């Protein structure tokens, strides 16, 4: 499961893409994916606002994930 990273999410993981480990199991919803990220990278726990897109469509917390989906993590950015 490939995740594309933007903004501060890219800075936290230190790469523009991230392969979510299949073990112990693939996250099946957006909510589960967020939980996995917090476990792997605790700094995600401090982000209160994070948009997730599945195959270029904005996704709600309960949206289902499939292993072939392209997921994007889009934090808000403020700079101008």
């Amino acid at each position: 499961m490939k995740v594309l990273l933007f903004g501060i999410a890219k800075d936290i993981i230190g790469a523009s893409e991230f392969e979510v480990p299949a073990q112990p199991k693939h996250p099946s919803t957006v909510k589960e994916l967020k939980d996995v990220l917090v476990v792997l990278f605790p700094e995600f726990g401090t982000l209160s606002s994070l948009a997730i897109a599945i195959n270029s469509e904005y996704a709600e917390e309960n949206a289902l994930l499939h292993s072939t989906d392209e997921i994007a993590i889009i934090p808000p950015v403020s700079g101008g």
Partner: protein
Amino acid sequence: MNLERYTRQTQLKEFGLEAQKKLSEAKVLVIGAGGLGVPALTYLNAMGVGTLGIVDSDVVSLSNLHRQVSYYENEVGESKVSSLIKKLQAQNSATNLIPHHTFLSTENALAIIAAYDVVLDASDNFPTRYLVNDACVILKKPFVYGALHSFEGQVSVFNFEDGPTYRCIFPTMPNPAEIPNCNENGVLGVVPGIIGNLQALEVVKVITGIGEALSGKFLLFDGLSQNYRKINFKKVAGNDAIIHLKDSYEFSCEIGGSAITSQELTELLKKEDLQVIDVRTDAEYQQFHLEEAIHIPLSALERKLEAINYSKDIYVICQSGIRSQKAIQLIGAFKPNATLINVDGGMNKLNRYALR
């Protein structure tokens, strides 16, 4: 309207004289005369937008010049709005240029925005962005959003023809500790030029109806890979039902405590011996700092809380005034009775007055 001036765009059959006329009759408000506002205003002015309002109360600083390309070395310390209007007037004498020498606030947002057709959000902080959204929803004005993070940018058109708003993609405002801004994080000079110009293009589409505006689409730009990616998103029920601005758009974690501006701090330092804690990183501190400052980086603060004299007032400073708020929370939690004063604007603002 001088037709010859705009020939190269009116000869485009999709644009034509009709679109040019719409531009000349349009009133566009640009909020922020910084990295995004400068390129957006330069092109909107060149293309013949009839009325351009500019909201900003900042002055030019040396560290603006690498990206805010209309400001010159000899203008450091001058009002951005005044400096920019001088150049825009010389660039296109037909434009009605309206200066708003203020920052957008809950007191003035509705009155200022009401006089315009389209808003271009070129601000640099979350409170202003959420204020712009809510005011535009209340007034039913479309607004073109653009924002930056290092080599990346985001662009979208919100609240346009019953389309989604900023809150449909980012429902609630993040707190300042979690997302750094350009002053803390840095930005490559040309990136705001690209994003500001994409915003100007969207403004032209909104006004004239040509092409397809980025409504319901969220554009992500990555300068390092030259990737553009569009995310589709939908309107969330209720987000267009805002009828009043919030009482405050300040960050929720901002303590109710006191604050002074950098300028006030410099004045006080001339008269008194103050305890100033500088919580920036080693590298930032080495670059320049106040002689009086005690350096305790935010990352080391928890371990060094004993180094602070709690019988004296504690002024906390960082680069832009945001990390200092976090430090104040930390110190306040350790010593609830401490007198803590945030230095608003931080070293960025101080630099102009004290170290210029």
